[in-house]
């Protein structure tokens, strides 16, 4: 972990959102790109929070404090980094599989795509399959991203994809899957019914950029 990530982690462990926000501000002062802030500071710090919970060093409540502070920090960072685009395409809808609560990676993906001019709709944690299909039918996005962090939710990723493919939405969106339970396992992604996969938000942006550069 970098020094900045460690400082951010320390702020999370103290539950100190002011320091967390100050660290975000100074990171963006020295580099206005959101990508290194998200992927080299916030994400490693939150992974370490998960590990500390596993190691019984911190409680579930501590982990929720860290999550809330990091999500607020992302909101602040995004608003600072965002510049208005006239263009709002391609479009993407992002949802965690039903019951999946780990949502930060997906939010990172949406924020990074917005900065590239995409129009994204972020649905966050545990989206019931019927509501996901409803909003896909209404908005007809170019891409649907479905995420699962823990393996028991993989069948729910598959159900969501089956439901979207069976919905008759036209044109059919590209479907990308990700999250820790999927990683960048292309074979698994295929068996889940997805078109694409990526190991993290940054790679997902690259994969999607390539797809739409060709069109």
């Amino acid at each position, binding site marked *: 972990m970098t020094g900045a990530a460690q400082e951010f982690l320390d702020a999370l462990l103290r539950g100190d959102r002011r320091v967390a926000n100050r660290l975000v501000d100074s990171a963006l002062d020295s580099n206005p790109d959101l990508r290194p802030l998200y992927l080299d500071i916030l994400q490693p710090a939150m992974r370490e929070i998960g590990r500390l919970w596993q190691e019984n060093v911190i409680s579930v409540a501590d982990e929720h404090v860290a999550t809330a502070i990091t999500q607020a920090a992302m909101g602040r960072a995004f608003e600072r980094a965002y510049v208005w685009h006239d263009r709002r395409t391609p479009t993407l809808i992002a949802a965690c599989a039903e019951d999946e609560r780990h949502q930060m990676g997906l939010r990172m993906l949406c924020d990074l795509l917005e900065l590239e001019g995409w129009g994204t709709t972020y649905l966050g944690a545990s989206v019931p399959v019927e509501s996901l299909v409803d909003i896909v039918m209404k908005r007809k996005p170019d891409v649907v991203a479905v995420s699962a962090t823990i393996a*028991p939710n993989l069948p729910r990723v598959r159900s969501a994809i089956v439901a979207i493919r069976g919905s008759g939405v036209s044109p059919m969106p590209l479907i990308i899957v990700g999250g820790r339970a999927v990683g960048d396992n292309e074979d698994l992604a295929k068996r889940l019914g997805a078109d694409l996969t990526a190991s993290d938000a940054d790679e997902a942006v690259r994969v999607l950029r390539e797809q739409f550069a060709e069109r």
Partner: protein
Amino acid sequence: MHDEIARHRAAEYLIRDKEAIAVTVTKALYDESPELIDKHGERGRQKTLQDMRYNVEHLTPAVDLGDADMFAKYVKWLDDLLRARGVDTKYTRRCLEMVRDEASTRYDADVAGAINDIVDAGLGQVTAA
């Protein structure tokens, strides 16, 4: 590697029988190791039951997809988590061995084989070489 049909059937049975397997294995573990009640109390038993449900939930997609590595990683993660909370690896190993026995008792050879291929990969993580 067992064929896809056996694996899908096995996953369906695991979803259907999750609660029964969790209850049976928890009871068998506590019958065999009464010291667990002395050490962790009734709350520990309830946690074990909940953990057994999670174990079956993690086992199911690994069996369905024939992905032994997925379950092996989970067992490693679980063992680290439980050891940090004072639960010795031998209990995690016994739970998995009991799941193995349950599968062999409950299901036909194809289904039991599809399940136990994956359980064995998990056992590999908690068995001294």
